[in-house]
């Protein structure tokens, strides 16, 4: 075992360490196969396995609420909707690989690497430099020059669920609300786009006269339609009479 691994094991406890090794491997393997599998449904299932692995990692970090929210929201709702769409469209095998944009692969790789770099920097930043590791117990910290993070015991003092709730609705209430507005806008947009209308004018709140290109004055049109149709109806009734005679 390398010194780094031994140090990590000593800091986090043996059971947690080995859970991390096993589940980390599962998470990586499922993530890779999710990208590489050609069958869309199998890829979605690998995504579920990956979400579960990450939920287990959250749970080992004592973030119970995050773990169960991960399962309910991602594994339970979002991937199920993916599967729903895949099943409705009947996508199988190679059909998913049609319709590529030019240069997609290169762009995807570059953007993926950039995202990875940003995330790695964000996760690693608290642990870089001297005296910044968060695994120091609160009592041992030097008050003035201590690390930025308080440690799990302080964060979970009132229980994990209460802690998360308190943070979301105090310090992070603004990002939280902005995110929810974003989601609502996306949902409404999806509904508007998904709802098929014969007449595009019905999608707007503007009065009918404001959309002249799409539709003439409503009442006149309807009236003229009716006028045009009535003689036909009368003619038909005469036909019927003749038929019965």
């Amino acid at each position, binding site marked *: 075992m390398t010194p780094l691994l031994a140090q990590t094991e000593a800091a986090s406890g043996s059971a947690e360490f080995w859970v991390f090794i096993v589940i980390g491997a599962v998470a990586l393997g499922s993530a890779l196969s999710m990208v590489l599998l050609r*069958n869309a*449904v*199998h890829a979605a*299932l690998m995504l*579920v396995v990956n979400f579960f692995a990450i939920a287990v990692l959250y749970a080992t970090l004592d973030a*119970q*609420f995050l*773990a*169960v*929210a991960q*399962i*309910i929201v991602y*594994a*339970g*709702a979002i991937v*199920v*909707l993916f*599967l*729903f769409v895949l*099943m*409705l469209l009947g996508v199988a095998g190679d059909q998913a690989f049609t319709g590529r944009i030019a240069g997609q692969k290169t762009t995807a790789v570059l953007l993926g690497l950039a995202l990875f770099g940003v995330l790695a920097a964000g996760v690693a930043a608290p642990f870089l430099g001297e005296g910044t590791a968060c695994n120091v117990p609160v009592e041992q910290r030097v008050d003035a020059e201590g690390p930025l993070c308080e440690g799990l015991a302080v964060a979970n003092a009132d*229980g*994990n*669920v209460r802690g998360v709730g308190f943070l979301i609705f105090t310090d992070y209430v603004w990002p939280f609300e902005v995110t929810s507005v974003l989601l609502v806008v996306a949902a409404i947009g999806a509904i508007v786009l998904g709802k098929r209308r014969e007449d595009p004018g019905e999608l707007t709140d503007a009065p009918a006269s404001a959309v002249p290109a799409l539709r003439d004055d409503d009442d006149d049109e*309807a009236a003229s*339609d*009716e006028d*045009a*149709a*009535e003689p*036909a*109806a*009368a003619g*038909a*009734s005469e036909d*019927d*009479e003749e*038929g*019965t005679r």
Partner: protein
Amino acid sequence: MDLQDFGITVAIVVGGFALWILATALFIWGERRMVAKMQTRIGPNRIGPLGILQTVADGAKLFFKEDILPKGVDKVTYFVAPIASATVAMLTFAVIPFGGSFTVGDREYTLQIWDPEIGLLWVLAMSSIGVYGIVLAGWSSGSKYPLLGGVRSTAQMISYELAMGLGLVSVFIWVGSLQASEIVAAQSGTFFGSIPAWNVFPQLFAFILFFGAAIAEAQRPPFDLPEAEGELVAGFITEYSGAKFAMFFLGEFMQVVTMSAVTVTLFFGGPSGPLFGLEGTLAGALLGTFYFAVKTFVFMFVFVWLRGTLPRLRYDRLMDLGWKVFLPLGLLWVMATAAVVLIQDTLEQAQVLTGAGIILAALVLILIVGAFIDRSRGEAEPAEDEGEEAEDEPLALPSSAETAREGASRHGGARQVRVPK
């Protein structure tokens, strides 16, 4: 954790699991007998007294049957689906307290397998995972009826999970905790000295919401559309046989037991009841198990009762009920509950009266809104139909007798029109 802890924990886990399996087996038999009574048949009565061992015989038969692998199935997924279905149904039960607590030496043990802080969110997580068994079974069978059943079940489960979640959330807000043990503890004692302090009294609407959604989640009649045999042969289990079929079967019935148990825990005090001075002993804990079992059996009977009584809902009605009735009313109820809790927390005195007044007001409001929704729907439907007809009339082929008569009366006045046969 020493040997004593380890031994007692293992005993509790094994005992709880045995209780669950036993309840499921008894339920399968009991449902067949009770539905038979409701339909004036006899039901299984050959194996064991009153046919009570019928389930064992059926289980043995199913596990020794030939396991058919149809052509065109997606093998791995076809194999995983029943396992997922049964496993998830078994896991849900872990967080439910099924008995009182007792002390051995200086340590206290509770008859509950796992009491995490997230508590009953675990139920929600597992029921949202439970849909995978059905979806994957439908897709991997490579056949159209299972696929339709799978798609239906996905839509149904996702719709009703919202209602179920709202029912849970209002109880969480009311009690102030997600933990099963705290929810049960909050329901000990009495209202006005005689009525047990169960959540069902202040949270009646949440109970209706939750139980309705639980029936839909367990896919029992009248919400058993994923396997509607009249339309879909047997839905997602059409292509399954032998042990895999048995797993789906077991998972569905376990779901009923679990949902009844969750209902009892949330709204009917779980294992609480009069203990006659046995608190803290093993006998007292087992008496709690007895109370819990009796309450759970009542709700299992309600499941059977509904199956024996109600016809299956039409699919669009099912969706309407979930999205247009349960969801908005559930949101209103959660808001009302939160308001009451907030007022109780901030105003020290006269809190009970204020709370009761607001609950009453919210109830009246909900009733009015509900009545308004009903009425507007009742009025809107014929009105819409008329409107559509009026629009369509000029364009429609005027072949029907009615159109002819109308046309005639408008133009020719009193001319008689005979209806063509």
